[in-house]
């Protein structure tokens, strides 16, 4: 209820404002148009009150008639040619006759086609008399203008007897002294005494001549001024005229007589009515405008509401209204010249046909007439147009946002946002190609099928220009978009390579060891991403970001758990070592004890073996877990792979000699240099050889070979297993042994340690089984002596 009232109030206050401005504009416009041009604005109330006899038109008419009378009586062509009687309103047949007559009397010298160079020739006297007769016949019936013409004291022509009402004497001399009363209903009285003119309006004599010299500003253009004397020819002529205060229409044989005064008064009255209306309009407008100041808050709200409505309107529609409507209203009548042609051309362009164009013409004609007859509407529309544009610009910051083109573009791109980038780019490329084809065809067709020949050249030119601009604009936009995508692609590939390098942090980000650091890192990254706006690869970048984040946390998690594992194993092995120390020590004492029964000696021997094995296991477990977690300190140096194998074999020679297995070596002469930690690699091959010794078939051979192929040096250890090798078993698995049931021998970590250490040194550790043949290959990248490093761990 409240809001409804408020809305109504806003609407009313806006209407007050709007109407106020419109009415004021209409009033001012009307006054400006309807005011007689010879009157000043401050005389406006006077103009409204006065009758037509005060108008300049009336004065011109009267002086024209007087001239005609004088010219006829003087018996010659117009001497002064001042009024010439051309100011008659030529409405009817009667008026035409009068005009012809006047022309006949006055214009002889110009009969030959206005040829000023022709010698004067007078029309014959009888013809002249005929014209004069015709003239007087035409005006005689018009009682709106009473006249009497005297020459040499004798009444020549008259349609009223001025003597009867005591104004003139029989000879045509003016009788009245001081105030003069014209005949009833006739407010205007003129008397010409052969030299000067005397004029009475409503019984009051007017000052006709002013200072006695004629100037442009002077109201009356009549003979009698010092610089405009009447002349000798008219000295004997007396004229008296009276004009009706409110002229009526006089008919003669079903035909209207020439009654200019009637029509003059009529149009004067209309003009006065219009002026009155204009003044009322102005007054009402002013009042409303004042009121609108009192209700300006409501008006502002209404303006905002209007602006909101405008904001939803398409820019194209607004432009169409702004330019097309005035063109429609005024175009047909805006004048001549270029505008008119433009309108015509446009019209034909739009309409493609005469009929439709004609309709449009008619429509605009009637609209124009409508506007003319109701100025308020016209001014309101004009004001509304300007006001709405201003209001729109004032409240709606970015009016181009709400445009059909923009909407289509946005919808187009919004629809694309859901698509994968490749599809989007393909689509864009297709669109550009299509546009290019269309543009090419358009250019060709414009050249070949020039529609209307010469007169349409500029239309074609404008179309071509607009087409080119549009084409280039689209090309530019697509190009910009593609550049953007290319930049994002670069960013994407940079991030991918970062992740591949193991750099999971954002580029140049802070140290993100802690979870907190991680979080903030990601936050900043997110903010960074949002800066991309509506890029093609946004979603892909986002996904990559997720992967990076996930991977980072996974790697962190793994590192942490590995560290914890190593710590745990270190603690456990420490805790095992302490009691183990005691065990080993006391077993040692037992071993030294003499006089023990044989079976006890056996027990002690077993204890000794097992405690030694336990010791080895603890150390191995520790080593392998450290190697796996990458915590093993490495001392990388350049060493000879072949020598390493030989040294290891030499080191183990004693063991080998005791076993039933023989070693066959195939190691090339000359150094094969690799980059590794010698101590660790010794452990690797020691384990491999021990493995071979332990699990090889008795009497079989172990083949140790080293080959350098290209950049790779591969050392392989092949042995024939004494046990059947199970297929699909991972021997490098921790605690894996060829025979699950066997309990003697190593810790079961030999291969696992070998693999961990090899990989920690940057080598490659592979094993394979072929029937009972067990093959382990350790591969390292070869370093050229003194050459650049190839493959660094």
């Amino acid at each position, binding site marked *: 209820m409240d809001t409804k009232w408020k809305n109504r109030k806003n609407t009313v206050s806006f209407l007050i404002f709007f109407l106020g401005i419109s009415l004021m504009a209409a009033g001012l416009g009307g006054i400006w148009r309807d005011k007689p041009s010879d009157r000043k604005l401050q005389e406006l109330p006077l103009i409204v009150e006065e009758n037509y006899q005060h108008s300049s038109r009336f004065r011109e008419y009267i002086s024209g008639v007087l001239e005609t009378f004088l010219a006829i009586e003087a018996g010659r062509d117009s001497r002064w040619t001042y009024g010439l009687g051309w100011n008659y309103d030529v409405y009817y047949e009667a008026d035409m006759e009068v005009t012809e007559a006047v022309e006949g009397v006055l214009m002889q010298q110009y009969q030959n086609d206005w040829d000023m160079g022709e010698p004067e020739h007078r029309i014959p006297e009888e013809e002249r008399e005929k014209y004069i007769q015709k003239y007087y016949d035409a005006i005689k019936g018009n009682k709106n203008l009473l006249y009497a013409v005297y020459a040499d004291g004798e009444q020549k022509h008259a349609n009223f007897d001025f003597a009867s009402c005591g104004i003139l004497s029989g000879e045509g001399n003016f009788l009245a002294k001081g105030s003069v009363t014209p005949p009833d209903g006739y407010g205007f009285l003129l008397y010409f005494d052969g030299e000067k003119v005397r004029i009475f309006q409503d019984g009051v004599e007017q000052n006709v001549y002013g200072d006695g010299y004629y100037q442009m500003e002077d109201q009356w253009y009549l003979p009698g001024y010092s610089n405009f004397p009447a002349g000798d020819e008219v000295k004997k002529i007396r004229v008296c005229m009276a004009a009706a205060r409110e002229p009526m229409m006089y008919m003669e044989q079903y035909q209207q007589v020439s009654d200019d005064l009637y029509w003059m008064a009529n149009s004067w009255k209309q003009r006065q009515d219009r002026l009155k209306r204009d003044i009322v309009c102005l007054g009402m407008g002013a009042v409303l405008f004042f009121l609108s100041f009192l209700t300006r808050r409501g008006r502002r709200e209404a303006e905002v509401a209007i602006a909101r409505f405008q904001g939803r309107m398409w820019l194209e529609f607004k432009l169409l209204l702004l330019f097309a409507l005035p063109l429609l209203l005024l175009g047909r009548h805006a004048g001549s010249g270029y505008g008119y042609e433009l309108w015509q051309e446009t019209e034909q362009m739009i309409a493609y046909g005469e009929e439709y164009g004609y309709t449009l013409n008619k429509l605009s004609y009637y609209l124009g007439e409508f506007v003319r007859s109701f100025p308020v509407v016209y001014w309101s529309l004009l004001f509304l147009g300007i006001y709405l544009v201003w209001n729109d610009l004032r409240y709606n910051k970015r009016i181009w946002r709400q445009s059909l083109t923009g909407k289509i573009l946005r919808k187009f791109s919004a629809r694309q946002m859901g698509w994968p980038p490749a599809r989007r780019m393909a689509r864009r490329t297709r669109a550009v190609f299509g546009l290019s084809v269309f543009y090419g065809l358009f250019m060709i067709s414009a050249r070949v099928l020039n529609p209307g020949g010469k007169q349409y050249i500029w239309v074609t030119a404008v179309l071509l220009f607009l087409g080119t601009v549009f084409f280039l604009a689209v090309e530019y936009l697509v190009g910009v978009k593609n550049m953007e995508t290319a930049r994002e692609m670069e960013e994407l590939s940079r991030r991918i390579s970062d992740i591949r390098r193991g750099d999971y942090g954002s580029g140049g980000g802070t140290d993100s060891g802690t979870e907190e650091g991680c979080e903030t890192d990601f936050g900043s990254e997110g903010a960074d991403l949002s800066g991309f706006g509506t890029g093609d690869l946004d979603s892909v970048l986002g996904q990559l970001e997720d992967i990076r984040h996930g991977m980072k946390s996974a790697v962190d998690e793994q590192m942490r758990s590995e560290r914890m594992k190593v710590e745990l194993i270190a603690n456990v092995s420490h805790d095992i070592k302490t009691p183990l120390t005691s065990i080993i020590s006391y077993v*040692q004492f037992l071993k030294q004890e003499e006089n023990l029964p044989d079976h006890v000696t056996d027990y002690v021997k077993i204890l000794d073996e097992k405690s030694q094995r336990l010791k080895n296991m603890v150390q191995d477990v520790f080593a392998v877990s450290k190697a796996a977690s990458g915590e093993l300190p490495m001392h990388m140096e350049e060493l000879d792979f072949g020598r390493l194998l030989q040294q290891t074999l030499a080191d183990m020679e004693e063991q080998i000699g005791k076993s039933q297995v023989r070693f066959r070596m195939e190691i090339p002469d000359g150094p094969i240099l690799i980059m590794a930690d010698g101590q660790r690699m010794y452990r690797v091959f020691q384990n491999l050889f021990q493995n071979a010794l332990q699990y090889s078939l008795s009497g079989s051979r172990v083949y140790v070979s080293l080959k350098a192929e290209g950049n790779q040096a591969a050392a392989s250890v092949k042995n024939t297993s004494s046990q059947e090798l199970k297929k699909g078993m991972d021997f490098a698995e921790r605690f894996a042994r060829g025979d699950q049931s066997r309990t003697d021998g190593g810790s079961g970590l030999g291969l696992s340690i070998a693999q961990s250490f090899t990989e920690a040194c940057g080598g490659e550790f592979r094993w394979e089984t072929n029937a009972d043949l067990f093959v382990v290959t350790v591969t390292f990248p070869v370093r050229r002596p003194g050459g650049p490093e190839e493959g660094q761990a």
Partner: protein
Amino acid sequence: MGECVLVVDDDREIVKAISILLEGEGYEVLKAYDGLQALDILASRQVRLVLMDVMMPRLDGLSAVMRIREKQNIPIIVLSAKSEDTDKVLGLSMGADDYVAKPYNPQELAARVKSHLRRYTCLGDINAGSRADEIKNGRLVYRTQERVLYADGEPVKLTATETRIVDLFMRNPGRIFPAEEIYRRVWEEEAFSSENTVMVHIRRIREKLELNPKEPEYIKVVWGIGYKMEKQEKHS
């Protein structure tokens, strides 16, 4: 009774085991079960050598070593279940003379105790007036004139070939010799399958002069490169 050795460990069984071991070698053994106890005993008794565990209640081994070092210069051997290189370096830098990882080899431990005591007690004077033809490296002394190697002051019995190898190593401590070079310079022949021959001799030398031949301290293999005599920075 012989020299007095202090064994410090919070594990009583280990202390007992060590004391049995060392008493068997003829030493007098004093026992302590934490660092503070050890310091008390050291204040009251004349102790020639300390065997010190690291992880102990009240006062840990390394702190105790530092406290001892403030007053006395006796040999200290640190015993620890921590076998990492970093742990060893830490222990030695704190002032210990030796570092033995648990579980230790009883013979090795006994040998080390003996070695340290001998050098501390007997060789003190000899070391003071060092001779011109003597090359010293840790507990090894090589007299070039006589071509005799002394370990802890006692001459090591070496064969002619072994003496030549030791001669080569002792004159060039720290330098790495490939097997071929050793072979050429010792046997004075062209090297052929030298690795095994050299290794056999080196192994035998190690057995004669290393305290624990399986974990040699002096003659070491530089894997993939050659062999070298490790230069001992300590005990100079």
